[in-house]
């Protein structure tokens, strides 16, 4: 019987696996594959790191004129409540 959880299949399923919504039997196959396939394990680590780095992205700096406009609107709101 050909293997169902091949490397190309596994990489499609990483988010499903990480979200914890994968059916248990698929999750077992997913983990079994990881246990014997170092590149797929590296891929999973890459994926987790990617999510982690995204979560640590600093807030974007707004153009000064945008911020000034908004802060002026705030002062205006304050004065006219």
């Amino acid at each position, binding site marked *: 019987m050909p293997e169902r959880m091949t490397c190309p299949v596994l*990489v499609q399923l990483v988010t*499903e696996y990480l979200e914890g919504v994968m059916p248990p039997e698929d999750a077992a196959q997913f983990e079994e594959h990881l246990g014997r396939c170092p590149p797929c394990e590296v891929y999973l680590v*890459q994926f987790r790191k990617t999510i982690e*780095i995204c*979560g640590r992205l600093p807030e974007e700096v707004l153009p000064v004129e945008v911020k000034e406009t908004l802060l002026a609107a705030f002062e205006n709101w304050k004065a006219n409540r």
Partner: protein
Amino acid sequence: MSDGTSASAILLSDDDTALVARLREGEAEAFEELVDKYHSALVRFARLYVPTHELAEDVVQETWMGVLRGLDRFEGRSSLKTWIFRIAANRAQTKGKREARTVPFAALASTEAGQEESVEVDRFLPPDHAERPNFWSTLPLDFDNQPEARLLSDETFAEIRRAIDTLPPMQATVITLRDLQQWSSTEVREALDITEANQRVLLHRARTKVRRAIEDYFARANGTGAPSDA
């Protein structure tokens, strides 16, 4: 005026409750915090409704005005961010109609979730390969070998922003809300009115492309990738 935490506000998190109280007291720094936190994500979100970045910026300007106008009446029946994004959705819908762009989100999400090839197909040997069918043809780069300083460098952050900017709009919005703003899948699904399955597919596609952008950047930085003139 310290009764900003009346019974109706009990659904708010402590952080939201404190922020709302500071806003109502007229503290400009509190408003600045709010703007810093949500402005870019709101522009990304508004862009789903309107055809240009400029119009999305207009929508978000109007959203902030709406937030100020509604602040004294805000009852905390939803989280602060849900309330703000709902105001943005209303403004954007109005403007989107005027600009004749009314593709339902569900349709946009299905298109973006369905139209592409499976992810990473180019990384694998063909299924009929004699020795290693379906195995990696280009091994993934080990991020754990990267210096910590590079993982979280301004250059890495810039690569991520560039990668997100090139994503289709739904994918860009989903990864921004989920992974940058740390929303739950339920919050994203409700804000965008898309199914759980579509949300997951969009997120996976977005993460896959961002992952690739980081890998390519690290490979170049290691000098093992495509020649760079940097």
